C-alpha cells in the first residue's frame, strides 16, 4: 500500500525555485532516506508533505487521501480545511531543533495533544506517555522539563510526542544534526528500532550509514531535483550520477 504519493511537485520562494518537479512514493513499512547537500530542498519537501508549506503545483496523496492536486491550469488546489486536518493526522514530524514545549513537563509534552486533539482521558494519555518513554529509554523522566534534558533526550521526547498520536508515517528532518556526535547514536538506535517494527518513515539525514543500512529506499536531491532514486545498493554502490558521486565522496567514505 502506498502511504505517500507525490507527483510533479513544484515550489518557489519568490524567484527561487526550490522544488522542481519532485515525484516520490513511500510504501507501507518502508524507510525512505533523503540525502543531499544543504539548500537542495529536502526540508521544503518534508514541509510541503506535512502542510507547513504549500506547493505551487503537483499532487500529494497521503494514505489514499488527496491533499492537493492540479486544476486545469496546472495550479495546486488543496482539499478542504477539514480534509487537510484529517490528512495531517496520518503524519508525525520530528524536527532538527526538537521544538519541545519548554513550559510543559516531559509528560505534558506527550499528553497535551492526545488530550486536546484526540480527546483522550488524562489517564489513558499518561499511560501511553509512560509506555513510550520507556521505549525511548527515558523511564522516570516524566516530571522533568525539557531544559533539564540533554539534546539527545529532548529529541527522544519529541519522537515520543509524535508517536503518541499514533501516526501512520513518521517524518524526520535531520533529527541528529543539532546534536553532539556522541549523542546521535541514541537517536539512530531509536529510529532503527522503529524501522524494525515496520514504522513507515521518511528521514532527511546526513547519516550515510543509517541511509545505507536501515533505509529501504534512498533519494538523492540536488538543487530542487531528485537526481538519484533507488535502493541503498543502487545509490551507494551503483551510483550513476556524477553529482551523487561527488556528494558521497564527501559525506560517505564507504563504510
Amino acid at each position, binding site marked *: 500500500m502506498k502511504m505517500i504519493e507525490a507527483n510533479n511537485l513544484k515550489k518557489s520562494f519568490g524567484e527561487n525555485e526550490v522544488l522542481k518537479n519532485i515525484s516520490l512514493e513511500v510504501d507501507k513499512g518502508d524507510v525512505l532516506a533523503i540525502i543531499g547537500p544543504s539548500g537542495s530542498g529536502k526540508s521544503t519537501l518534508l514541509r510541503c508533505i*506535512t*502542510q*507547513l508549506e504549500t506547493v505551487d503545483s503537483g499532487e500529494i496523496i497521503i494514505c489514499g487521501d488527496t491533499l492537493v492536486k492540479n486544476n486545469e491550469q496546472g495550479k495546486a488546489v488543496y482539499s478542504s480545511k477539514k480534509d487537510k*486536518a484529517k490528512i*495531517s*493526522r496520518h*503524519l*508525525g*514530524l520530528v*524536527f532538527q*531543533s526538537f*521544538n*519541545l*514545549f*519548554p*513550559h510543559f513537563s516531559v509528560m505534558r509534552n506527550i499528553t*497535551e*495533544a492526545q488530550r*486536546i*486533539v484526540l480527546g483522550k482521558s488524562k489517564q489513558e494519555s499518561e499511560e501511553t506517555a509512560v509506555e513510550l518513554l520507556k521505549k525511548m529509554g527515558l523511564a522516570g523522566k516524566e516530571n522533568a*522539563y*525539557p*531544559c533539564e534534558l540533554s539534546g539527545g533526550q529532548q529529541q527522544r521526547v*519529541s519522537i515520543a*510526542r*509524535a508517536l503518541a*498520536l499514533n501516526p501512520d508515517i513518521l517524518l524526520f528532518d535531520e533529527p541528529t544534526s543539532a546534536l553532539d556526535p556522541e549523542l546521535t547514536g541514541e537517536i539512530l538506535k531509536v529510529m532503527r528500532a522503529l524501522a524494525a517494527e515496520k514504522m513507515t518513515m521518511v528521514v532527511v539525514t546526513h547519516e550515510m550509514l543509517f541511509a545505507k543500512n536501515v533505509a529501504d529506499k534512498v533519494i538523492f536531491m540536488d538543487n530542487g531535483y531528485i537526481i538519484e532514486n533507488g535502493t541503498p545498493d543502487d545509490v551507494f554502490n551503483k551510483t550513476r550520477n556524477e553529482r551523487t558521486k561527488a556528494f558521497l565522496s564527501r559525506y560517505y567514505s564507504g563504510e
Partner: protein
Amino acid sequence: MTIQNIISQLGEGMLKTCLLFFSTLIISLPLGLIISFGRMSKWAPFGGKFKPLSLITRLYISIMRGTPLMLQIMVVYFGPYYLFGIKISASYQIYAAIIAFAINYAAYFAEIYRGGIESIAQGQYEAAHILGFSKNQTFFRIILPQVMKRILPSVTNEVITLVKDTSLAFVIAYAEMFTMAKRIAAKETSMIPFVVAGVFYYVFNLIVALVMNGIEKKMSYYK
C-alpha cells in the same frame, strides 16, 4: 492634627488610588493583548501593503505614548463637554480617570505583548500545527504562557510606573491619595501629609515588586 488624623484623612485617598490602580490593570492588560493583535494583523482587504488595522493601532499606540498622560486624562474628562456640550458630573471623575489610564497603559502593554509574541520561535507554532492544535489552542496553550514569562520584567516596570502615575489624576481633582495629601498639606501648612503620601507610594511599590517577584519565581521552573 496628629499623624493618625492625617493618615485617616488620607485613607480615603489611598482607597481611591487602589481603585484606579486595579481597575487600570484589569482593563489594560487584556485590552493591550487585543491591541497587539491589531498591531500585528496582516489583514489587507485592498491587497498590497495597506493594512488598515495595523495602521490604526500603530497610530493609536504612537499617540498614547507620544503625548503626556496628564493631557490625555484632561481630554477624556473635559472632552465630552467641550466637544459635545455634555454636562460633566462629579461622578464621571473616576470613570474618566480609569478610561484614560486604561487606554494609555493598554498601548504600552500592547507593545510589550508584541515584543513577547514575536520573540517566540516559529518552531513552536510549527510543532503545535503538526500535532493538530488549532490556532486558538496553539496561542493560549503554547504561545501565551511562554510570552507571559518573557514579558514579566517589562510588565513589572510598567506596573511600578502606574503606581506613581495614579497621582496624575489630581488634574481632574479626582480625590486620590496625592490630591488629598496636597489639600491637607495646604490646610495644615505641614509637610507630614507629603511624607505619608511618599511612604504610601513606596510601600505600595514594595508590595508590587514582591508580588511580581513571587510570580517570576513561580515561572522560573523552566528556561
